């Protein structure tokens, strides 16, 4: 995340670190002949991913869809609320305390309630992911919109710009880097929350696969689902990060 100071060397070392980790992992797992429930070897996990590729791919796509829909919903809610506060400052005293108190409950604690309300299909996961994402995006959007220099606002106002014009020409562009950072941070969270909710109840998805595998005491399969989940998170993170670089090109 922050290791961008010496791109080439840092990347090389990063890859080297990964390779070392895999080598040590494989060596320990094989050398000590660890049972699968302690630590299966990387090669065994990769083999299992290949064997279960259809199930895992379908489950991964299912979870990814849940995460993306919930993510978009949550991001929209967060940004819209922050914009509403900026346009109608009076609403700040209503929206901020409500948002803060909803957020004061750890997000996973909502999942039993959300599952009861929305059933164990996809909608409950949309809601959970949106809940987890919206607060982070709301906070960063609000911080970004508030960050605008008073003098710039006064200057635009003196030229006769209205609130909307100030919002679109000045506030949103100024806030964009922070909003984008909030969006980037939320990607991994979205996937994880989707999986956590799936484990409590679902028809499909990586969390469901993991839960089933735990019940069947198939720990190589648990690990292969973890690998796929990790890859999905990195993919989502990478996509949003790429979009951010394109969109916030001036940063």
């Amino acid at each position, binding site marked *: 995340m922050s290791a961008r100071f010496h791109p080439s060397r840092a990347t090389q070392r990063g890859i080297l670190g990964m390779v070392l980790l895999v080598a040590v992992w494989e060596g320990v797992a094989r050398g000590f002949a660890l049972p699968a429930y302690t630590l299966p070897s990387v090669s065994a996990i990769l083999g299992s991913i290949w064997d279960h590729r259809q199930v895992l791919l379908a489950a991964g796509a299912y979870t990814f869809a849940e995460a993306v829909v919930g993510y978009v919903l949550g991001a929209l809610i967060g940004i819209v609320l922050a914009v509403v506060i900026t346009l109608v400052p009076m609403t700040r005293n209503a929206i901020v305390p409500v948002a803060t108190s909803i957020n004061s409950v750890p997000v996973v604690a909502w999942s039993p*309630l959300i599952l009861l309300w929305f059933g164990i299909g996809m909608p409950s996961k949309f809601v959970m992911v949106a809940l987890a994402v919206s607060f982070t995006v709301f906070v960063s959007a609000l911080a970004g919109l508030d960050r605008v220099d008073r003098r710039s606002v006064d200057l635009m106002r003196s030229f006769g710009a209205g609130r909307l014009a100030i919002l679109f020409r000045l506030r949103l562009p100024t806030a964009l880097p922070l909003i984008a950072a909030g969006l980037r941070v939320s990607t991994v969270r979205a996937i994880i929350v989707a*999986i956590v909710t799936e484990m409590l109840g679902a028809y499909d998805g990586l969390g469901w696969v993991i839960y089933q595998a735990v019940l069947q005491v198939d720990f190589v399969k648990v690990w292969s689902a973890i690998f796929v989940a990790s890859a999905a998170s990195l993919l989502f993170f990478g996509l949003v990060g790429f979009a951010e670089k394109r969109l916030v090109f001036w940063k």
Partner: protein
Amino acid sequence: MSSTALQPPAIRPGASPSPFAPLAGVLLRGARGLAILLAVLVAAEGLIVLFGVKPWYVPRPSLVIGAILATPEPYVQGFLRTLTETLMGFVSGALFGIATGVVFFRAKVLKELIFPIFVVSQTIPVIAFGALVVLWFGNTLIAKAAISFYLTFFPVTVNTLLGLESVDPRQEALLRSFGAGRFQLLRRLQLPAALPQIFVALRLASALSLVGAIVGEWFGDTVGLGVLLLQGMYNENVVAIWAAIAMCALLGTGFYAVVAAAERALVFWGAEQ
């Protein structure tokens, strides 16, 4: 608290409302918070009765409080158990995070080798990790604390590193010219200078460690707030779920407040924004 609670995820030192809060001020704020909470609960009660909201969605606060008071034991025990797990995970995660932050700061090679692994480790869904941890450590306190630890350490590592890297090199040069060694430099200048950043992460980590403890209890424990949540769901008892949610909020907010108070006391010079 609202100004400290609303820190952006972007990592920077937070603005504490006051550099030094005397005890009277704390008490006053606490009393005001309590009064607001009471008012909100009464208002919620009234609105729910007025609009005839079904208890299935949002039960009246009096029902929820009544449920807790009717059988306080599991709630008190659950609260204490989850608090213990949270504290164990938080303390170990914070210490590990600060230690790795210092090590990465000192040895760039280690940072470049290991930091990417840390990043990737955070993409592992905690609950899947939980299944493994419970298998490794059994259904013990340690297992829950390990999950809580796993969620806690990463932000602390990142912010410790950022805080240490943002120390003014001229101050370092000055101290070094007085003959300060590496350890003294770290203790007298670099760690104190990084403290505001570290505390931003600790506030975030206080919430994350609670999440870890709750999720950890979902693997077949019998005591804890996470267990109460699950039991409420399986019995489709919405009042019980709300009661557990209220206890989680109490624990989370209380813990957050303690960490924030520690921040005000330790970072008394406040964050220079």
